[in-house]
């Protein structure tokens, strides 16, 4: 591989990785409070992209459409929590998981019934599709914007989690909801806030995803959701910083497997998981994760 191609691949990796990272943050945040693998996260992301798509199709300016997309996701996310998760706060975690899968099926099929399964072309404004040329290396503007947004969101989320009382409450919730209530805190409201935030992040991820890969369909969230989940686990699920690291690692792995061994391109996804398993063998709780089920004797 010559230098140009290598640099290009590096950029490609960063681009894909930051996308995974962005989506993994929302994933891991919801996991952080509810200990729930929110399988519907990818679908909430899809909802965000679709709402934005509809708004632009209706002729609204892009910025407004994005806001509507985020709003749509937030509403769906919060409703999901209210309807499908809240009644099960004290039930076994696995029941929650099933309702999460149920919500996921529901959203996918609902959007399929409404919009059909044919991919829709997502149109983004020109300033988001610009491409810079650095010699022979091509640098799409999203490769610059998305990591910046990711890092900004990461710092924002970290600030909330570690510097505000709400963040403390969020971290405490993960371990002990009843006792959080005993502090005079409206735990359900905080969880709703987390869902709103997580869904907003999903929507932002979904919109950027749609800008980068302008084809959206009701099942677009499935594979990305799974990858983001893998990224979150790789980084140590529940750790926001870990999610970002995991996202980038996954992005680079995927790109370089294909780049270095084009014949093995078919194994790309296998490599991502293989790598994940390898890491977990040595660090059973991911890169930044703590053992949440650690039991003292």
């Amino acid at each position: 591989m010559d230098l140009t191609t290598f640099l290009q691949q590096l950029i490609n990796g960063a681009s894909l990785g930051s996308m995974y990272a962005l989506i993994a943050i929302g994933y891991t945040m919801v996991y952080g409070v509810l200990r729930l693998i929110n399988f519907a996260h990818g679908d909430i992301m899809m909802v965000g992209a679709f709402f934005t798509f509809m708004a632009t199709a209706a002729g609204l300016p892009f910025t407004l459409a994005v806001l509507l997309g985020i709003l749509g996701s937030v509403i769906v996310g919060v409703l999901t929590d209210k309807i499908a998760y809240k009644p099960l706060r004290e039930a076994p975690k696995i029941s929650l998981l099933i309702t999460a899968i149920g919500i996921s099926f529901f959203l996918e099929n609902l959007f399929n019934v409404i919009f059909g399964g044919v991919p829709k072309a997502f149109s983004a404004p020109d300033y988001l599709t610009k491409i810079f040329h650095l010699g022979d290396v091509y640098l799409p503007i999203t490769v610059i914007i998305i990591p910046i947004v990711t890092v900004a969101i990461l710092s924002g989320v970290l600030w909330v989690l570690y510097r505000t009382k709400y963040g403390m409450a969020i971290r405490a919730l993960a371990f002990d909801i009843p006792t959080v209530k005993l502090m005079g805190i409206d735990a359900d409201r905080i969880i709703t806030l987390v869902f709103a935030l997580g869904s907003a992040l999903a929507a932002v991820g979904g919109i950027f995803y749609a800008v980068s890969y302008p084809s959206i369909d009701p099942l677009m969230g499935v594979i990305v959701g799974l990858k983001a989940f893998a990224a979150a686990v790789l980084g140590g699920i529940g750790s926001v910083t870990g999610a970002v690291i995991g996202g980038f690692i996954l992005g680079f792995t995927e790109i370089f497997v294909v780049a270095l061994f084009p014949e093995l391109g078919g194994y790309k996804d296998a490599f991502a998981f293989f790598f994940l398993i390898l890491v977990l063998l040595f660090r059973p709780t991911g890169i930044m994760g703590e053992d949440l089920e650690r039991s003292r004797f």
Partner: protein
Amino acid sequence: GVVLPLTGPIAAFGQTSKGGLDIAYEQNHKLKNGDNVKLVVLDDRGDKVEAATAVKRLLNKNNATVILGEVASGNSMAMAPVAEKAKTPMITHASTNPRVTKGKKYVTRACFIDPFQGAVMAKYALDNGMKTAVVVTDAKQDYSVGLSKAFKKAFTAGGGKILKTVLINSGDKDFNAQVSTIKSQHPDIIAFTGYYPEAALMVKQARAMGIKTPFIGADGVGFPELVKIGGKAAEGFMYTDHFNEAAASSPEAKAYVEAFHKKYNKPADSMGALAADAYGMILSAMNQCIDEGKAPTDKECVNDKLRNTKGYKGVTGVINIDKDGNAVKSAVINEVKDGKFAYKTTVNP
């Protein structure tokens, strides 16, 4: 009885098929004896288990005379043995894997098979002076894998050189790694054998990276979304297909295209056209049985007529069925021009 993937991962194909089928049905659903044809459409979620069950349901619950479907060869292959066992004619409009009809007495298809299409792609490329190619194969799709093989065989046989095969997976959206690899190879042509969702994104990413090499694909890319999603980048994308509405010269085809425009207000796609032809062939077979004084529900007769279809004038051209149950028909080569699918030429078998 019709079995299509109306939900699930390949819902898009099922839904476009149904679009064409509905037009054809609205145009004509009366047999010569005055009976109305009844269509029962079942969804199989793109799942084999459900596809096979759906056929049995059609046979037992709806007393179906003929089974139409599926899109994906894998699913058609799950259905074929059921139809075969029940001695019920089955026609698939879009399953191009040769094995679907292989050794089956009751299974017919309305489309050409992968080896033919691959050869057409290769021939066209060679005829236009392209000597080196990179093949893009979708490892997840039997369609793409088979097509790639046929293309490579014909291309090398004709004196061309395959520089590299890059693999993608359907459902992927990021092809930058593959595109960067292709770029370093400098091929004359990129033979893309997958489906349109990936084709659109890949060509877009390729053009974004400054690759000017032309793409050639097959019927899997011939969907309006190629242009909608690919935008300007899709310009010049060539592909082989069953049908192009611009090449529609026969009155049947014109009528279909007109009805399609009226109902959906968009250009007619080939998946729907194929479904319409499959339906038309069934109708024609039933009518022939009536002519012979047999019941249109006489499965043996209908199958016999289907298998011996000769010179059927369909939307996608003239269809002849060979002894294996495969359609022998011409392919068209289209090119994306100004956001439309421009007709280039017709290649006869």
